[in-house]
């Protein structure tokens, strides 16, 4: 590099790096520091307790249950969302038959695209309210109301969707999937449209059906987008704080009886309600580690050879 260029580059880098250090790295370090204390969160007096918080964490059934729930979310949310989004995107873009050599969407696909995308414009807080009404535990709830009308549910004992240990996680997964499918449909559509049509036409001439053209052509050429979607959805699954804390019972959610607990809700309850902030910071550190591990694993596992076209 020429003289002066160094300074020019350094000038651009210095401020962002400094900001990153102050507002991202420093809080992490502070949190780690607090996690070694019995800090109660309402003053600056605390004692150093070493790794006590971490050993307590290993024995905390509620937190371990929460990790397990996060893992369940991590498996089911990306898989279901991506499969549905891929299916819909394929149908909307290349699923139609008959016209223009078989490379158009099913009839009315323009409208489907808008309809599917619609949930994405809602914020999570609105979704929580919306699905609160869907899952409402008496006859006034949308699901219960419909089931009672159909005679599938007895009016005097409606299904308490969010108050059933067996249902609550699935009810939450359904919300996230409903919210996410539209966005990934649009993402995959964009990627699909960049796939040259002649590839499809060639496949069609060779006698490929819908399934074959999907698995042999669309999916391999879409792999980068799927990988991106996977990482994003993984992040959503590791978090889940807003939905769980607003939709389920208990302080910061997690009910009934800790059956929908995720790491962040346990952490918030310990941090703000029980005044065990040092302990909560230890949870924060564990969450950070787990999310880092998950993201590295996901990126590794989905790595494929790139196909250029």
């Amino acid at each position, binding site marked *: 590099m020429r003289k002066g260029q160094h300074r020019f580059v350094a000038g651009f880098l210095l401020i962002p790096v400094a900001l990153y250090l102050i507002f991202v790295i420093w809080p*992490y370090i502070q949190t780690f520091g607090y996690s070694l204390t019995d800090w109660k969160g309402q*003053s600056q007096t605390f004692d150093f307790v070493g790794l006590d918080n971490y050993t307590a964490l290993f024995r905390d059934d509620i937190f371990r249950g929460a990790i397990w729930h996060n893992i369940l979310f991590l498996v089911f949310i990306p898989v279901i969302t991506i499969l549905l989004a891929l299916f819909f995107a394929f149908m909307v873009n290349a699923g139609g038959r008959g016209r223009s050599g078989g490379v158009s969407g099913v009839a009315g696909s323009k409208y489907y695209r808008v309809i599917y995308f619609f949930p994405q414009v809602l914020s999570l807080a609105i979704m929580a309210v919306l699905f609160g009404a869907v899952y409402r535990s008496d006859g006034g709830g949308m699901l219960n109301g419909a089931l009672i009308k159909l005679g599938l549910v007895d009016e005097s004992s409606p299904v308490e969707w969010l108050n059933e240990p067996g249902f609550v996680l699935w009810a939450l997964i359904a919300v996230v999937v409903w919210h996410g499918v539209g966005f990934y449909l649009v993402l995959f559509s964009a990627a699909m449209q960049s796939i040259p049509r002649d590839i499809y036409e060639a496949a069609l001439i060779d006698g490929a059906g819908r399934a074959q053209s999907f698995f042999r052509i669309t999916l391999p050429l879409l792999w980068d987008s799927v990988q991106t979607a996977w990482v994003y959805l993984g992040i959503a699954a590791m978090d889940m704080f807003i939905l769980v804390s607003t939709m389920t019972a208990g302080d910061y959610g997690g009910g009934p009886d800790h059956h929908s607990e995720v790491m962040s809700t346990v952490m918030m309850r310990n941090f703000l309600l*029980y005044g065990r902030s040092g302990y909560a910071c230890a949870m924060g550190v564990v969450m950070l580690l787990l999310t880092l591990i998950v993201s590295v694993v996901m990126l590794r596992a989905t790595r494929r050879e790139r196909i250029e076209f």
Partner: protein
Amino acid sequence: MGSTSAENTGTGDHTPTGVGRRDLIKRSAALGLISVPTMGFLSACASGGGGEESGENEGRTSDSNPFGVKEGSKLDVVIFKGGYGDNYAKAWEAAFQKKWGVTSVHTGTQEITGKLQPRFNAGNPPDIVDDSGAQQIPIDVLAKNGQLLDLAEVLDAPSVDNPDQKVRDTLIPGTLDAGMQEGKVVALNYIYTVWGLWYSGKLFKDKGWEAPRTWGDFLAICKDAKSQGIGGLAHQGKYPYYINVAIMDLIAKKGGLDAMKAIDNLDPRAFVGSDAATEAIEAVYEVVEKGYLMPGTNGLTHNESQTRWNQYKAAFITSGSWLENEQLKTTPQDFDMKFLPMPLLPGSALPFEAIRAGSGEPFIIPSKAKNLPAAKEFMRMMLSKEWSTLFAKEANSLTILKDGVDPNVQLRPGTQSTVEASKAAGNNTFRYLYTEWYSEMNTAIENASNELMAKRIQPKEWLKRAQAAVDKQAKDPASKQNRRD
């Protein structure tokens, strides 16, 4: 992350390093993204340093100015803007400024924790706080951190209305208990509240029901209600706090004050081995077992279930005396809301009239408040007849000041019935303190109650779980400092 140029084979005319770098950036971006949600939580843990401030706000003390309020100083007031709104506080502040020349900075909010926790941590708290609502900072946590002023000074000061009397002696007996931590009053629970069952006078008149005095009568009404397609008991299932009111009140009335204190004092036989607790929980479970609950009530929020009750979908509901104010908009004109003490189990130690009564809505003065003199004076004035009446008018509720409401203020039917109930109760009132002392144990018992109401556990299991919560709390060394006799 290992080699980043691994996937470069066969990518045509790109230089290997170019692609590698692009991937590297992409991946670090993904990693960065992942850390974003975690970050939010983590940085919540981080905090600034502390700061000290010397008392510049002290004026000269006199008989009429016992704390030495300084004219021209500023008072930082934070009010929980919930069911009672914050208009009453604005009216107070106007009166305060008029009398003392102290201007106030008013904050009305529901996010008490979010707004105040960082300020407490930084040693820069407001001067006076109404620490209430779903996001209240637990008093026990604040007290343990030495953040609360011992209010003895205010309570022992002369009353505004009658300088010969201490402020303490103008209050309804027992109302200071709820603000006690480790033997000191650190929070002034300002609003007088009674807890129990509620019903609609109109519905009862239409159906020809009489307000029940025994648990048997109560069950009979539930049965009749069910046969007419109405729920018996409604409760705010998403918040098991409310059904615990019924359970705990039954225990206290059956077993007397000793049964209540056993729980507060973390007795090893508070639940398991207590006849009162066993009978009470079995009585409540009978309601569940016989299907007398309002359908779906276990999963409803307080608004949803209370509104259903307002629509005559259930005969009874559990709640405290804020219920009427909270439901103002959805209550039909002729609903005729009525309060009912918890009906009696056979052989109860306390009479039917006995009620859980006490104070709620804790006002605190942080020990590091900048303007302590004005904060203390403000609290002293809160306990004057003038300000108490101001509160009753604006917030439609009673305060802990004895006869603190001007008789000309007309009360709503529900509030009126609580006044009558507390008169009938006389000294027969009780009040649990474990909810204020032990937030973790409280959560555990609430969870167990939720399971019981959903029929997923039996009374025996409930007793075991509640006892386990008590035993766990008793192991905490800090819990020895909270005791009541």
